[in-house]
Structures are given as C-alpha cells and as structure tokens.
C-alpha cells in the first residue's frame, strides 16, 4: 500500500471514529440487536394459549386433554361451557385455539368407533395457525398410537419415520441467528461506506481531495479499507456471539466462512460506494442505503424462503449479496460445508463485487464535476 493511500485510510478512520457518538453507533447497536433479535426472531411457537370445550365427561377425553396440559407447547387459558363462548375468546385473541370434544367422544372410542375432535384455530397469522395445527396433530397422533395399542385397534400397514438432518430439533434459532450475522454485517458496511463520499461533498472537502495527487481509484480504495476493516471486526464479533452466546453449532470450515465474509464485504462496500458516488448530500445517501437495504433484507431468504417467491422476483434476488452470504453462513454453520460446495455462492458474490466496484469507480469519475 502506497504512503498516499495509507494517509487517506488514516484520515477516513479518523473521520469515522473520532466522534464518540459515532463510534458508539457503530459498535453498540449491532451487538445489542444480535442479542435481542436472536431471542425474538423464532418460528418455534410455545405457550400456545388454548381453551377447552369438553362436552364429554368420560375418561378418554380427560386422558387426551391431559396430554395437552402436559405439553410445554400448549398453555390452557380457559374452560368453556357453551358453544357461543368460542367465538369471543378467539376474536379477542385471548386464545389461539379451542379444542372442542363432543358428547359422544368416550362412548365412541370404547365402542371401537372412530371419534372426532374439533379444533378451531385463529387463522389471522396463518403461519402460527399452521404450526399450532401441526402440534395438535402430533399430540393426537401420540394419543392414537397408545390407544390403538392398548385397545387392540388395527395399526396402519406402513409408518413414517421422520428425521431431520443438520437441525434435529428443528430449532429456528439455528436458522435465524446466522442470518442476523449477515444482516448486521450488511448494515454496518453500507452505513460506513454509503455516506463517505457524500460527506466530503457536503462539507466541501471533496474538491480538496481532488486536487491532491491521489488518483480516483486510490481515493476509492482509501474509502473502502476502513469499511472493510470495521465490517470484518464486527462480523467476527457477531460470529463469536452466535457460537458462544447462542450455542449455534459451527460444523463447517472456518476458511470457507471467511472466504465468504471477504467477498461479501467487498460486494457490500462496492454497493455502498456506488450509492455514495451517486448521492450529492448525506440525506440522499441515507435514502439510498435504506432503499437498497430494505429489499435486500426482505428478499434475501432471511425469514421467508426464496423458493416461495414468484419466478421474476427470484431472478431479482440474484442481485442481492445477502442472498449468497446467507447460504454460505447457514451452510458452514449447520451443514458442515467446505469451500468446494459453495463455489457458486462465491462466484455470485465476486461478480456482484466486481460489477459494483467498477460501476462505483465510473460513477465517481463522472460525477466529479
């Protein structure tokens, strides 16, 4: 690195870190957010509030309901005594579901006739409703298996034996926390680089920078390095917190992960510099960072799978660096991936990095005037 770039890098670091508040905003919020979001962002539902409307006094219905009371997933909130009480408890969100057992339940079962349980679920949040429905089915199936064995019912000729790989207990935290690593790394990188050129333009130092012997490529390199270093340090801190605080298992190759971090930071910086080169004021820079970041997060597969999107939107996600990085993070964390499996992800990130850097340099030169 030449002495000129070194001087510029030192100046950039000073500009970013001189102010105490700015220093704090770079360090505290990402770590705080990792902790808060790591606990908050889960698709595993527990303590599902439910109400019981049992018209059957028999032992079989009590046995079935005891399984719900004993489950950590369910939490009994109310006992109903009439049909008309069902609608209000669901409408007001006091319970998510009502288990309704008809008067014939125990009699049917003891007479070897199939019995029915009606479950009414609040479908306002359809994902929670689907998950709660699955849990109800699991409890009832466990009851069925035992009842069938104890009372001589015929068993089905073939049973499903389900096993889930890479995440045996299906903890959604293992999926979300590596995702948050990617999310926060992107935010930090975009914020440090996205406003850097506009800041010079606004404070009038941009012209001074131009009359120095620095070439425009050198200026861009000088502006990239602090973002890269800060991003790398923050990514490492967040990764460590994911492993040591949240106990997400890291099963893959650390080299494969850091190769991913490296190209991801490059592409993030490229996009940040691009935004920075277009914007004249910091306000425009902020808006640009926002306008890129929000879709980049929502369409990255962070919370909702890319495979569920319409085809046109799926193609659009190829422009999103977070999309590739999330695959690398989840692959190296959970699937034990090495670099060889992730080749296409690196290629995608590298292509984005190259394109955005080139475009940033071009924009920088053409908006200098």
């Amino acid at each position: 690195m030449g002495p000129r770039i070194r001087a510029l890098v030192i100046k950039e670091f000073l500009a970013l870190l001189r102010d105490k508040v700015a220093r704090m905003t770079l360090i505290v919020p990402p770590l705080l957010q990792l902790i808060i979001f790591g606990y908050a962002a889960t698709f595993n539902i527990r303590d599902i509030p439910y109400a019981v409307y049992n018209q059957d006094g028999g032992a079989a219905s009590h046995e079935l309901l005891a399984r719900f009371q004993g489950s950590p997933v369910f939490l009994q909130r109310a006992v109903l005594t009439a049909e008309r009480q069902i609608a209000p408890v669901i409408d007001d969100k006091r319970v998510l579901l009502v288990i309704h057992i008809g008067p014939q339940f125990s009699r049917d079962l003891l007479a070897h006739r199939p019995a029915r349980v009606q479950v009414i679920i609040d479908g306002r949040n359809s994902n929670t409703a689907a998950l709660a429905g699955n849990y109800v089915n699991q409890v009832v199936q466990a009851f069925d298996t035992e009842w069938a064995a104890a009372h001589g019912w015929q068993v089905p000729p073939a049973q499903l034996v389900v096993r889930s790989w890479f995440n045996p207990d299906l903890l959604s935290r293992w999926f979300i926390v590596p995702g948050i690593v990617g999310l926060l790394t992107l935010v930090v990188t975009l914020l440090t680089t996205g406003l850097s050129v506009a800041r010079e333009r606004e404070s009038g130092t941009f012209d001074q920078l131009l009359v120095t012997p620095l070439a425009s490529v050198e200026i861009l390199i000088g502006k990239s390095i602090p973002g890269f270093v800060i991003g790398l340090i923050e990514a490492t801190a967040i990764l460590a917190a994911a492993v040591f605080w949240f106990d997400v298992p890291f099963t893959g190759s650390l080299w494969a992960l850091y190769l991913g971090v490296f190209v991801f930071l490059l592409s993030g910086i490229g996009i940040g510099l691009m935004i920075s080169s277009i914007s004249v004021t910091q306000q425009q820079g902020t808006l640009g960072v926002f306008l890129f970041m929000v879709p980049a997060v929502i369409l990255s597969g962070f919370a909702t799978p890319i495979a569920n999107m319409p085809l046109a939107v799926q193609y659009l996600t190829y422009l999103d660096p977070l999309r590739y990085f999330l695959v690398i993070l989840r692959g190296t964390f959970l699937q034990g991936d090495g670099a060889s499996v992730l080749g296409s992800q690196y290629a995608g990130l590298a292509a984005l990095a190259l394109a955005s850097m080139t475009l940033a340099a071009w924009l920088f030169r053409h908006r200098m005037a």
Partner: protein
Amino acid sequence: MNGMRLRGLIRKEFLQIVRDPSAIAIAVALPIFLLLLFGYGVSLNARRVPLALVAPYSPQAQELLGGFDRSPYFVPHRYATMAAAKSALGRRRVDGIVWLRSDFGRRMLAQGNAGIGVFVNGVDANNAGLLEAYIRGVWLGWLSRQAQDQGSTLSVPVTVEQRIWFNAALRSRNYLVPGLIAIIMTLIGALLTAQVVSREWERGTMEALMATPVSMGDILLSKLIPYFVLGMAGMALSVVMAVWLFAVPLRGSLLVLFSASGLFMLVALGMGLLISTVAKNQFISATIAIVATFLPAFILSGFIFDLNSMPVPIRLLTHIVAARYFVAILQTVFGAGDVWPVVLANAAALCAMAAFFLGLTWRLSRKRLD
C-alpha cells in the same frame, strides 16, 4: 398559536414539498414499489418443493409415490441410491428425501409394519416443519386409499377436524400484506420527517423562523400537517393495493382502519421529528433511523415472528415498538373485522406513544430556543 401564521407556515412547507418532489416520491411511489416487491416476494406458503424419492419398484411403492407426483406441493426427483439423494440434499437441490427400502412391498404385505424413511433438511426449521406436514398428508391419503381398496375404511381412534377461522386456506399473504403496510408506513414516516427539522438548522433558516412571531408549536405543527396528509395518501394507496391487487379480504370498516392509521402516522412522524430534532449529525441520524424503525418493525412487531413465543424480557421490550400495535390492529381489521377489545387496547397504546413522541419533541425544541 395563531391560525393565520400556522396557515402561512403550512403553505411554505407545502411549497417546499412541491418544489422538491422527493417527498412526494417517498410518500406515494415508495409504498407502491415496496408493496409490489414484498407483496409478491414475501410468502410462507411452500409450493413445488423439490423432493427426492428413493424407491425400488413394487406395486405398493408406486401407489405411494404417485401421491407425491399428484400433490401440488412437491416436484419429485427420482434417485437410484440413497447416497445420490443425500448428496443432492447436501447441495440444496432437494429439501427432503422419501426413502423406501427394497423389501418395502414384501414387508407391507407380510407384517404390515413397513417403515417409510423421511429425511428433511432442517436448516430452515420452519420450512422443514411444513414439509413434514405435507409429507404426512400424502401418507394419510395413501393409507386411506389402501384401506378403501381392501373394502374397509382407515380407522384411527381419534381424528382431528381442523377449522381455521378467518383464513381457511392459510394464505400467508392475508396477514403478511397488512403487516407490510405497517412496516412501510413506519419507514415512510421516519424518512419523511427525519431530516425536516435538522435541515432548517443546517441551512440556518431555523434562526430566521425564530425571529418571526411564530411559536415553536406552530413550527412543529406546520411540519406535521403536510407530511401527515402525504403519509395518509400513501396509506390509502397501500390499502387499495392490498384489497384490489393482492385480494386480501378487508372484513372491518374503513373508518376504523383509517382512524388507526391516522394515529399510527402521528406516532411515526413524531418519531421521525424526534430523531431529526435530537441528532446533530446526519450519519448518526441515519443510523438511528435504521436501528429504531425498520429492523424493530420487521422483527419485533409480530409482523412475521409470533410475539407470544418470545422470551418474557423480549416480549416486554416489544411494547415500545409502535409498529406492534398497528400490526395487531391491521391484522385484526383485515382478517377478522372490528373486534373492539383488540382495536381499542392497541389504539390506546398508539395514542400514548403519539403523545409521548410529539410532547418530547416539543419540549426538546423549546429548550433549543434558549
């Protein structure tokens, strides 16, 4: 407060908006763009999941595999060996494997307890759970067809009869789109006002304003009213798109919907004004705006992650996220109707937050006059 002075200020603010159309673009074009992108892009309904089938030929196996071919949820891929299927799963070509051993048909006829191996990629735990439920559905359908062929019915002791209220088809768009409206309005409220006060300070026009007889309350109101009008226009557009484009049923009344939106708009604008008044440097205000608005509205509002499942300290924390109350109102008014206990409790919280943010902004800006 003086009506004529306020009118004059509002006129000035409107002129500024009209001359620099970026605010109109934020209020009108941005919701359209974001709602289009996310309304189509965000879905939790898995369809056409790639699934590996490893099964040697037998009549019983063919029956079962046919169930996967006919299901709209799967795109089956046949693999000859388990090793090939495992490698496909590792490379994310398929999301799950259904494995029948070579003696499947024989065991089924002989002992009646053949095992069907199902392996799912658990990395995306939510998706894996849904996949498992779909596979179970195909299995149950196959069992009852088998029983029918033998002239009997599938008899299990207890069957669950599920009734899903408000959204029988479990269309995730019906609750995600109303939630998205809350997120988009949070963003727009903050983006619209986050810079309007600091801009006056930076350009030195705040001092000019202060030299006039207008009060600080007049100045803040004049900032609030035009952006409120713009924000509500964006809100109306979003509702129109949700109902007409995304076919989300609106079961509640428009009056409740827009009253709640107006309240929320006050909170969002108040938050933006507060950031704008407090932050001295635009880098910090940008960071605060992102940290305080978009990410909490996305993760802590109940938009996608269930609030009841969060640990208690986090659940308490969500009470300071304004979007949480608006998401609850929107999901209820769209999905269920005007359920007063839900609407009133959340509206009261929004009122309190609006009063807090606007009051704090007013106090802080008064101090600056000294």
